[in-house]
């Protein structure tokens, strides 16, 4: 009965059977979760961000649990693009879902360099540009915190690939709409909204911050209202699709994002509670829509957002 409802989404050139992406850095390369979740029932896995050079990442501790969420400061630990292409990427072909590469860098040139090499691989369906990682000093995030830098890096990356380009924005800004608009102008096919919020937790016995990196990124239900608003504001400013994320744990949470104007969602921290959550969300979304006599998830996108420009959202679709 639920199967009649169309949950498929289109993000740039990417056609996904389900609107659920697994958030970057939370799901390994998918393989780690394969025994616990049915990857053929998710839209796509977004890989851990990869950089030009290998990175050991931040000192421990890298995780702190906080009220209704957690702080993380992994520091982009990854083997670097050379090793990644040689030893890892071929394995992604086996995934029963789309695989989206995530690129992080510290300069415009490196963003373009890593993207060009990664996007050239057939195993990679699309590229997410992580210009909003809060855990690598202040440099990493400056791109997503400044419209001009955002425009510059997106234009440089756009020039090197035709694959779908998702630009991941930071909530640590005063005007996310301006940055969203700039990313679209510079050629982004979609936006991921939001990355983690900067945060800190202090050990009052040791008199020092709990994270090895001192500061971290806050995720989980604690950030959901911030994320919903960010999607709402970005959706009014652009006509490209938005992948909403931040504290989504169930279909009700997901619906807030769709109604605010997200075309798809990503699930990160909730996978640490229960790896069956993504599949459950898909089932419950289908049931929600069926109970209202709706045929397609697309019918509700942006419906709580009066400033949302629906006609643009799914150009190319029938009807």
């Amino acid at each position, binding site marked *: 009965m639920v199967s009649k409802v169309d949950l498929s989404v289109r993000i740039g050139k990417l056609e996904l059977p389900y609107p659920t992406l697994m958030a970057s850095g939370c799901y390994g390369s998918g393989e780690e979760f394969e025994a*616990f979740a049915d990857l053929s029932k998710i839209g796509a896995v977004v890989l851990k961000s990869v950089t030009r050079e290998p990175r050991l*990442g931040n000192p421990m501790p890298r995780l702190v649990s906080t009220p209704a969420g957690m702080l993380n400061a992994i520091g982009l630990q990854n083997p670097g693009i050379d090793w990644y292409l040689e030893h890892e990427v071929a394995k992604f072909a086996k995934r029963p879902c789309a695989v989206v590469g995530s690129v992080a860098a510290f300069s415009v040139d490196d963003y373009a360099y890593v993207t060009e090499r990664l996007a050239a691989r057939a195993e990679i369906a699309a590229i997410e540009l992580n210009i909003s990682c809060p855990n690598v000093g202040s440099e990493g995030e400056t791109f997503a915190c400044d419209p001009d830098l955002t425009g510059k890096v997106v234009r440089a990356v756009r020039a090197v690939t035709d694959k779908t380009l998702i630009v991941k924005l930071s909530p640590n800004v005063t005007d996310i709409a301006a940055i969203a608009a700039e990313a679209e102008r510079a050629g982004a096919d979609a936006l991921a909204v939001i990355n983690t919020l900067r945060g800190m937790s202090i050990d009052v016995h040791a008199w020092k911050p709990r994270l090895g990196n001192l500061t971290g990124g806050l995720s989980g*239900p604690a950030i959901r209202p911030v994320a919903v608003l960010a999607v709402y504001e970005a959706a009014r400013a652009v006509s490209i699709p938005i992948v909403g994320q931040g504290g989504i744990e169930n279909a009700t949470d997901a619906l807030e994002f769709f109604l605010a104007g997200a075309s798809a969602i990503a699930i990160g921290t909730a996978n640490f509670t229960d790896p069956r959550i993504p599949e459950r969300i898909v089932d419950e979304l289908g049931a929600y829509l069926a109970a209202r006599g709706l045929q397609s998830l697309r019918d509700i996108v942006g419906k709580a957002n009066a400033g949302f420009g629906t006609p643009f959202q799914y150009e190319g679709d029938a009807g």
Partner: protein
Amino acid sequence: MLPGPSVHDVVVLDRTELARGVILLGFYAPELAAVTSPGQFVMAIPPGGERAATALAIYEAQGERASLLFFVCGARTRELAELRPGDKLSLTGPLGNGFTLESARDVAIVAGGVGIASVLLPAQRLAERGARVRLFYGARNSELLVDRDRFASAGCELCCATDDGSFGHHGFITELLAQTDDKPDLILACGPSPMLRATALVAAELGVRAQLALEETFACGVGGCWGCVVPLDRASVQAPKFPKTGSGDYVHARVCKEGPVFWAHELRW
């Protein structure tokens, strides 16, 4: 399908409070019990659904029953402690790489506090195959030296220590290990990290190889987030295959995936 880790929906069979705040929960979990090897753990999915899952060592795994032994020390373990026979729970596992028992004939197992939860399975496995097993067991006080009888009836020789002197040696359990005259040919250890570091030092002095089960805070528990790393010798067999970075002689391995058990001499801590 090949038996392997999965999400197991299990039912609580029995619940015993071994000491104040120390809970032993037994489950009807035949599939989990069948595929568990010593030193592995599960992520217990919170019944209320609102928190991250809790990593807990698998204490017993025999026939249709598996059990978890844990100390109540926060909201998540408090929630698990409220479970009663008949209640349902979901466990993701078994996870991680456990102890390598090799063909050791004389094994010293060092356990501190809740670390006891990781060492019953290796103790039983070793004793069954005729190895001599000595358990060096330390805790804050005699009450917290829980479930000693089970180890004794499995055939272990027990040496105990308490911080307050209420039972056994008054002091650290590793002091007893250091004093031993007949050297074991393998040491296994699980407990708080100062105890593990001391065990590694004693093992090096004795010239005995040691495997340490590390305790770390996990988020995913399955190797997906890189939140739980420990520096490991690049040449270690357990080191994730990574290119050189910086000085290049160590890599960050995931405690939940490459571990939780590591050879003491391969850790760079």
